[in-house]
């Protein structure tokens, strides 16, 4: 049954330790001062990996029906459309600084 995967306690602890390790990495990379814009890229990349781990193993998407994964991916696609179209406006204004 797709919806009733039972993870072992050892596995769940492993996932948590991986997430804590990546938290340490994301803090540690700020100590070495990666130049702009790569510091942002690295921070986002680590956050994406951590989120993927949470979604796949804690939220059971790895063993779940593909439809729930499709829902998650759809929300991310629409989020990227939101940002993409917004930035097409805000990045290319002749007078970029608003009064607020």
């Amino acid at each position, binding site marked *: *049954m*797709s*919806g*009733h995967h*039972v*993870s072992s*306690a050892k596995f*769940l*602890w492993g*996932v*948590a330790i991986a*997430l*804590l390790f990546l*938290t340490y990495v*994301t*803090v540690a990379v*700020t100590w070495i*001062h990666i130049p*702009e814009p790569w*510091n942002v890229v690295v*921070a*986002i990349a*680590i*956050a994406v990996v*951590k*989120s993927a781990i*949470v*979604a796949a193993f*804690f*939220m059971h998407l790895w063993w*779940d*029906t593909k*439809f*729930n994964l499709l*829902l*998650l991916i*759809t*929300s*991310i696609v*629409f*989020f990227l459309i*939101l*940002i993409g179209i*917004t*930035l097409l406006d*805000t*990045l290319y204004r002749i007078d*970029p*600084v608003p009064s*607020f």
Partner: protein
Amino acid sequence: MEQPSTLEKKQDHLQHHFVDSDQQFESAKMGMWIFLVTEILFFGGLFAAYIVFRSWYPELFLLASDHLDTFWGAVNTVVLISSSLTVAMAIRSAQLNQQKGIIINLAITIALAFVFMVIKYFEYTEKFAVGIFPGGYYTYEGIAHDQANIFFSIYYMMTGLHGIHVVVGIGLMVWLLLRARKGHFSSEYYTPVEITGLYWHLVDIIWIFLFPLLYLID
């Protein structure tokens, strides 16, 4: 059939409009995922605001982020990841019919959520004390930037909305804990634990993004 068989008793959570327990479970879970989609887009609007203003004022984000304490942000990240682990353990306990395990893991989750909110409370009051308020109420002079209030408006909106989600999560966990004590959950039926877990993990994921984006700008 005088006495109800154990099979019937086990199925008493099953609503009449579902074919079987599994279909009911899968439907509930799909419904929760659709709700999580709306949550992602809800927070998505705030992340869009963050991205727009950071692209306009990169130097402001660099300056203002220094006023957030990386240490407590990191502690709260550890707290939330640990609480995600205990929720996952609570679901595992339910799947294995370990009544005590459900209760203990939910109790630890609630405790960790309170730790998160207490740390957040101290972070907020520390800023309020020096006049770092959102929007027009901002009076702090310590950041050499005309739009310094914008960073903190975004900070308060994002962490505030996230905090509200944590408080709602605490309420849901308490409800689960009370039901678990009455023995409502078993390997046959643990849908509320599963879908509350999904909600809690999403709150964790939001924080996983908020922490580097707000606290870790070097």
